[in-house]
């Protein structure tokens, strides 16, 4: 899987790249006109999709590209959202400060957690992200004076210009597109390629002089930064935060999104986020047992489609292309 990935990076001018861009442009155009035809509820739902898509894509920088078992990414998302909520309700600072501070605080927490985690490997790395992430959750859950404890913070004030759901929609869409472009550029930059090398062969990378730990730490902090931005978007959409944002099952949900779309494809997590958010809404209309449905879905995915939907499509596309090439 990973070898395939590297190969495709070296030949950027193949048809699938153009096809990908065509899909992206068409998708953006549709999304731009969508609010004019959809009801408010669906506009809100799509804004949630954009927020979640950014969160999942930021995780995939560490998970898919870094190959690190990052089990508690939701923490940085929650920290970002809480930063906005606290600044807007407990201080008189302007909104601009809140949205600037949120990703910075999130990446600072990511720096602290990541600094410890990158010393460990494999499952131990994952367990430490879990332990330290749950520590942050417990602090948020208990620090009543600052975070309002398990009640969360509600009715967070936002500027007048962001009060309508349509303006929130366009803001989240714009932020998502810009962030995805930046994340894409990061994955294609020398740093991103080196990160892939540290994933595929850490020992060899180390021996040719790559500082594996610092590359992983940087990826971790970047992912935390974008998760913080997603946290800001979450506050714009929901206007409230609760400690459950930072509990580990939220992070597991993001992992499922990444897996569902495909860890090896850049747009995979976005697709996964879209499917899961919309599906949870649709299933919710019919039954209260959404988690049961999600569990069964995940089971099928893990057993039969572990490379994810986009991963599978790319694989079969590549296979067909190489067969044609040989004939």
């Amino acid at each position, binding site marked *: 899987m990973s070898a395939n990935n590297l190969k495709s990076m070296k030949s950027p001018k193949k048809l699938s790249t153009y096809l990908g861009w065509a899909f992206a442009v068409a998708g953006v155009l549709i999304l731009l006109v969508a609010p004019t035809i959809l009801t408010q509820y669906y506009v809100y739902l799509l804004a949630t999709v954009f927020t979640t898509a950014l969160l999942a894509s930021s995780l995939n920088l560490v*998970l898919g590209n870094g190959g690190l*078992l990052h*089990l508690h990414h939701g923490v940085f998302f929650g920290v970002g959202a809480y930063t906005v909520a606290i600044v807007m309700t407990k201080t008189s600072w302007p909104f601009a400060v809140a949205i600037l501070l949120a990703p910075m605080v999130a990446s600072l927490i990511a720096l602290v957690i990541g600094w*410890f985690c990158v*010393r*460990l490997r*494999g*499952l*131990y790395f*994952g*367990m*430490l992200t*879990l*332990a*330290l992430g*749950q*520590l942050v959750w*417990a*602090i948020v*859950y*208990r620090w009543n004076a600052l975070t309002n404890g398990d009640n969360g913070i509600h009715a967070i004030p936002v500027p007048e210009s962001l009060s309508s759901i349509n303006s929130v929609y366009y803001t989240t869409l714009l932020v998502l597109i810009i962030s995805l472009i930046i994340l894409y550029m990061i994955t294609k930059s020398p740093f991103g390629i080196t990160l892939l090398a540290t994933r595929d062969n850490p020992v060899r990378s180390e021996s040719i002089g790559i500082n594996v730990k610092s590359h992983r730490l940087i990826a971790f902090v970047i992912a935390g930064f974008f998760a913080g931005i997603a946290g800001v978007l979450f506050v714009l959409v929901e206007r409230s935060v609760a400690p459950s944002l930072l*509990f*580990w*099952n939220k992070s*597991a949900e993001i*992992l*499922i999104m990444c*897996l569902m779309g495909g860890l090896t494809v850049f747009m995979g997590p976005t697709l996964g986020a879209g499917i899961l958010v919309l599906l949870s809404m649709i299933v919710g209309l019919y039954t209260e*047992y959404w*988690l*049961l449905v*999600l*569990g*069964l*879905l*995940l*089971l099928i*995915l*893990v*057993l039969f489609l*572990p490379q994810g939907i986009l991963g599978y499509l790319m694989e079969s596309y590549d296979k067909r292309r190489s067969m044609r090439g040989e004939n």
Partner: protein
Amino acid sequence: MDFATLASQFFIGLSRGMIFFIVSAGLTLIFGVLRITNFAHGALYMLGAFIAYSVSTLVGQGPYGFWLALLVAPVTVMLVSLVIERGLLRFIYNRDHLIQMLLTYSLVLIAGDLVKILWGTEFKSMDIPAVLRGSFNLWGASLPWYNAFLLIVGPVVALGLWLFLSKTHLGKICRATATDREMVDVLGINSTRVFAMVFALGGWLAGLGGALIAPTTSISMGMDASIVIYAFLIVVIGGLGNVWGALISSIIMGVGEALGILFIPGIAIIIPYIIAGVLLIVRPTGLLKSAW
């Protein structure tokens, strides 16, 4: 702060550590032998508690209810585990950690809703058997009998596991598989059967933990989420696959949490995570030698 309060809190922490140990011993065995990160372990524990409740209610919360529950619940959970292992887990032994983890996580999601369907969402409670009610005095500290009972069960389970792992043929194969799986395969030992048995044993231990905790807590949805994180942390800081490491770190966690409740009640919830974080940073591969 007098000595009696400290002693009784220490004692309660120790008995809580025993529950941690029983649950995480199963998890660490599965880790060591099957190399699977089993998120569903907490769900099995929850299932054990709910089945214990049902069994004891069925016989009318009478004097025998608890003991029958203690017998039936772990065995039922063991059978469920066996079905899970044969039906699902054996197909993913060669996959990434992430895939294995998410498969067991899907079981968490499914089990959560199944429990909701079968038992409803309201809290359940179960009586402590008459023999173990009340408390006794030890050096001026008042200690509940039930916790004393847990302090007996924990070492008995530990002893049983030790006998099994070091004295029986099957146990030796388990340890060998944990140390060097390829070698065990080369020797022509049917490792599939070992895997199924270890997973069933792990399930039995999770069910036992659930049945033991049932009389002391409100049995509810979501009791799986917190225990599984604790159990994971215990297993990792004890050294993956090392049962004795799990014993040591269970006691550290249990006592640490109990003393945290005594000294800093407001933020005691963060104590286990701090302990785990510090221990993992100081000894990244666990307190005792890992099987991996």
